[in-house]
């Protein structure tokens, strides 16, 4: 019998190191299985392992208690929370001869597995794993037989327990509707919740709501109500489906957080608040789908946050000793650009650096000394703010004060945790600006901004500003200018290839919000008119181990893409450092997104000479907002059929296409090139009251 080695890793083990040890395990005829909290199924697939398991990606726990616990314990304990629930790990642990912790945060999981199975060796470190396997290989057959018999008995016991559990669930499944209510006291959520979500999935939302309401009458504490509703929502998340009672679940969780906060239990209140934000803003409900309850009703969906005592506490006005002074038009301004992702700041930063009017410093969270830990660990920040221990403020002060003393203006790119970190320090005479792009509107951070320490909240489009202000109306008291992304579009101007007009480009498609399936549909229709047309997908493909919702979308896309590809109707470039090289071969560009802020890829492609066709982004369509408000009316389409029709029309003959192309180039350069919008950023950083900006 080959020795069975189960390796547990909290981090991602070095492939090179692991490969070297695997050779030694192979010499010992051992089978090595690797389970990690990281996505090893993607990164380590090439290694000679018996099997791999990306534990965290595989499991979406459906218990709010799980997350509340995970939010307040150590990384090692979090790993165990996942490992202990993974049947793949359990099965291999039952049969293991050696359990190996590959890193420090995996030791606790191995320790717990070893407590449950007395037979395998349990060691810390790869070399120790090899040594333990050597001892087993050189051990006597009697010892091995004893071990095997023990393992078999364990597996049988576990299977019996599993079967009993399944039988209990099956029994409960026969009694849906009101009949479930009496079970509420005696059955755990793991039995009831699947039945409720099933009713919702088969279109019996009214029935599901009635059952839930019945069960809630049995649950008198805020905690138990939050547990039930949260579990239903999480179950939807795990299934990759919309959660009809999501708002109620968020409300219940925030009520529980408020209760804990009122009782002075800051750690658990912080964990409950995180759980509420996880439910409310999980990308599986808003970003990994083509629909969003928040986009549908921003005011109603976020209403529980506006009422929450915890949220009030987290965004309380800290004030400042002095307001930011009016800028002096003649003096150079010292501008601090702070961001964890400078992607959309590059050209603006260069423009500022080349100007005599500005001195510029750029910092990332890694440059902020003791503040770095807050930006990297927002849970720690929230916990400290709720505990009122002053720790977060101290860390922020230590890391940010030198920058604030230097800068006239701080520009925080992205309204995420870094923007909140900056608010923990009195900015004094420094003007504070935060720029919010798009996805942050689907996070809790705008709801947590302290308006007393913010001078300007910049948006990249009107419709995103509207979306955020509906969630938090008092932000309108701030200056909230809209400045589109500043990008040097002229560098995209290159001669097109001869048959470019038959190629439809799409720049970026790996996010579900880009809705590449809509683009495939449009191009399929276009090809019925002329099979010479094809779609050129520029950018990375879907990667990693996505949520169930994304996995489903990706699978459907790959199937359809393969069909179109085999017919010659699709090309994919993969990630390109310079999209301009690919755009040379494209004559049109299609923006099929359900949601956008100020899409740079669309403008770059248009500046390169691609004629744009833009879907009226559904998240913002309907009242003249969104794409219709941003772009000329003839660019906008509603359906794939309309898109195909416009694509065909603007490329029907070379002269038409070239004329359209030149007209669109002139349009984007006139309105969106850095040479135009850059002046607005100059005003933002230095000179004027932004209320006067012609935006």
């Amino acid at each position, binding site marked *: 019998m080959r020795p069975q080695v189960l390796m547990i890793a909290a981090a991602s*083990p*070095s492939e*090179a*190191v692991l*490969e*070297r*040890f695997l050779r030694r395990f192979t010499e010992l005829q051992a089978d090595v299985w690797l389970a990690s909290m990281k996505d090893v199924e993607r990164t380590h697939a090439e290694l000679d392992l018996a099997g791999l398991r990306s534990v965290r990606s595989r499991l979406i726990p459906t218990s709010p208690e799980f997350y509340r616990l995970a939010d307040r314990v*150590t990384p*090692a*304990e979090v790993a165990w929370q996942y490992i202990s629930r993974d049947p793949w790990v359990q099965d291999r642990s039952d049969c293991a001869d050696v*359990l190996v*912790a*590959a890193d*420090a945060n995996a*030791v*606790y999981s*191995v*320790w*717990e597995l*070893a407590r449950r199975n007395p037979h395998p*060796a*349990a*060691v*810390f*470190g*790869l*070399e*120790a794993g090899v040594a333990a396997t050597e001892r087993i290989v050189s051990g006597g057959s009697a010892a091995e037989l004893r071990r095997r018999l023990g393992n078999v008995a364990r597996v049988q016991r576990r299977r019996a327990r599993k079967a009993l559990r399944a039988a209990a669930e099956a029994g409960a499944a026969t009694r849906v509707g009101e009949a479930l209510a009496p079970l509420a006291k005696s059955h755990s959520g793991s039995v009831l919740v699947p039945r409720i979500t099933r009713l919702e999935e088969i279109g019996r939302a009214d029935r599901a709501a009635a059952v839930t309401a019945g069960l809630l009458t049995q649950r008198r504490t805020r905690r138990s109500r939050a547990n039930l509703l949260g579990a239903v929502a999480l179950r939807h998340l795990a299934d990759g489906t919309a959660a009809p009672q999501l708002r109620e679940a968020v409300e219940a969780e925030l009520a529980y957080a408020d209760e804990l906060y009122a009782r002075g239990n800051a750690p658990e209140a912080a964990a409950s608040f995180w759980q509420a934000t996880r439910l409310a803003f999980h990308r599986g409900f808003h970003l990994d789908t083509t629909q969003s309850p928040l986009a549908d009703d921003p005011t109603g969906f976020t209403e529980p946050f506006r009422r929450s005592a915890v949220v009030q506490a987290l965004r309380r006005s800290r004030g400042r000793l002095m307001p930011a002074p009016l800028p002096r038009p003649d003096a150079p301004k010292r501008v601090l650009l702070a961001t964890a992702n400078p992607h959309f700041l590059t050209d603006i930063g260069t423009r500022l650096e080349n100007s005599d009017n500005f001195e510029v410093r750029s910092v990332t969270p890694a440059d902020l000394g003791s503040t770095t830990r807050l930006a990297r660990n927002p849970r720690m920040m929230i916990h400290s703010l709720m505990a009122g221990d002053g720790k977060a403020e101290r860390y922020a002060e230590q890391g940010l004060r030198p920058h604030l003393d230097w800068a006239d203006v701080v520009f925080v790119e992205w309204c995420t945790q870094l923007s909140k970190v900056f608010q923990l320090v009195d900015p004094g005479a420094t003007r504070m600006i935060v720029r919010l792009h798009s996805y942050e509107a689907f996070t809790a951070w705008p709801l947590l901004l302290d308006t007393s320490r913010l001078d300007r909240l910049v948006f990249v489009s009107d419709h995103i500003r509207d979306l955020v202000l509906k969630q938090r109306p008092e932000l309108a008291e701030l200056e909230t200018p809209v400045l589109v992304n500043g990008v040097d579009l002229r560098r995209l101007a290159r001669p097109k290839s001869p048959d470019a007009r038959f190629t439809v480009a799409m720049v970026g498609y790996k996010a579900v919000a880009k809705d590449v399936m809509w683009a495939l549909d449009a191009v399929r229709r276009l090809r019925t008119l002329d099979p010479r047309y094809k779609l050129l997908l520029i950018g990375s493909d879907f990667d990693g181990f996505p949520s169930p919702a994304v996995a489903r979308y990706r699978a459907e896309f790959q199937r359809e893409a393969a069909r179109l590809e085999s017919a010659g109707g699709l090309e994919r470039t993969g990630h390109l450092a310079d999209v301009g090289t690919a755009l040379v071969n494209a004559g049109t560009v299609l923006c099929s997104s359900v949601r956008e802020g100020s899409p740079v890829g669309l403008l770059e492609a248009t500046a390169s000479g691609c004629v744009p066709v833009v879907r009226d982004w559904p998240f913002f369509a309907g009242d003249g907002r969104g794409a219709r408000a941003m772009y000329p009316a003839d660019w906008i389409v509603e359906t794939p059929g309309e898109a195909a029709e416009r694509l065909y029309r603007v490329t029907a003959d070379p002269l038409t296409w070239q004329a359209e192309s030149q007209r669109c180039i002139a349009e984007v350069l006139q309105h969106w090139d850095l040479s135009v919008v850059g002046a607005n950023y100059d005003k933002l950083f230095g000179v004027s009251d932004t209320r006067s900006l012609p935006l």
Partner: protein
Amino acid sequence: MGKPHLIYLAIGFPPAAKSSTYRLRETANTFCRLGWDVTTVNLSEDAWRLDSGVDLSLLERVDPRISRVELPLIRKDLVTDIRTYSKTRAMDPVSWSKQYAKASMKAFPEPHFGRWKNTIIKAVETIHAEHPADLILVSCVPYVLQAVAHHMHIEHRVPYAIDYRDGWSIDVIRGREAFPPDSRQGRLESLYVAEAISMWVVNEPIAEHFRRRYPQHAGKIHVVRNGFDRDSQPPEPAAKDPNRQLVFGYLGTVNFPDDDLAKVLAAWRSARSRHPRLADARLEFRGHFGVGSRRGATGTAALLLEAAHDGVSMGGAVAKGDLADLYARWDALLFILIGGRYMTSGKVYEYMSTGLPIVSAHAVVHDANAVLTGYPLWTGARGFDEEALAEALCMAADMAVTASPEEYRAARAHAEPYERRSLLEPAVGRLIGQRS
């Protein structure tokens, strides 16, 4: 009258495969040769297997008259059997190790080892009771051994000497004072130095540090350099095919920072791309990579393995008995070293004894320069500048192919004054004289 008896507190004595092991072995052997009974005090083989490893071939050249006592002590922080862990340790092994190190300092202010003080005292008391000692020699680290020697001096009037090697109050890696004189450690060091009959250190800068710190004891302070062992020295390089594939080598404990190694590997890559003789050259690293749970899985190990496409390979430790063969296979040596003006290393002497070209990758100001200066096949100290290192590697490649037999002989002759036995015999003789 019987032979005089030395109790030699030598944690790291063979079969431990530790960087100081050769010095400990030769010191004990020298005492034996000079007519002493020698009892060495060390840890068990099991303890060393968790630490830097074991090389049984080292025992072959231990004088058989030496009594070896192995203590049942172990560094618990290096134990890898998770079934022996408490829940606290399992939940956070890193914090547990820090706490363990800190708690070890109660009995004596030294992380990890301080807790061993009473056990070692009891063991030495027993040895002394059975066979009274005439001299105790302690080799540090661990520094807790000083407390044992001092105890024996106070209780039994046994004189003692300290082989500090690198020195307690000087941080040879960072090149600064390790603790002030009025600290707990400082007061103890002052006490131990005052009572010791002699102190050895491995180079002049460290000796100077102690002379400045204890001017009243300057006369006790002696430089006893490390050296090379004749049995590790390969035969003189024979004529080789000038078109052969060159092999560069690094041998020793891999304890340098990942950043330094990354620079060396970048320089190696650059040198291979620009010098035809290096185009297919290989670079072999042999030695220990980490201890305890990190053995073989350190950041440096990952860097080396990821550089395989540049002809870089990583092997395990080499038995002392196989060193000469290994050096005979290599064409040039890479000398990567931490520290600066207070660091010399033991490796430099062994490297020089081979007569092979040596490429230094260490601080420009470094005590290894003091012995390498004049070595005809040395490329000089250039710090960790990638370009300068790449040039040095190219230069060494040329040396490996073009050096004449006379140059190889001259290189080996440069190392000759550093043969370990010739360095230790007078030092031991002087110490014996100081005892009387």
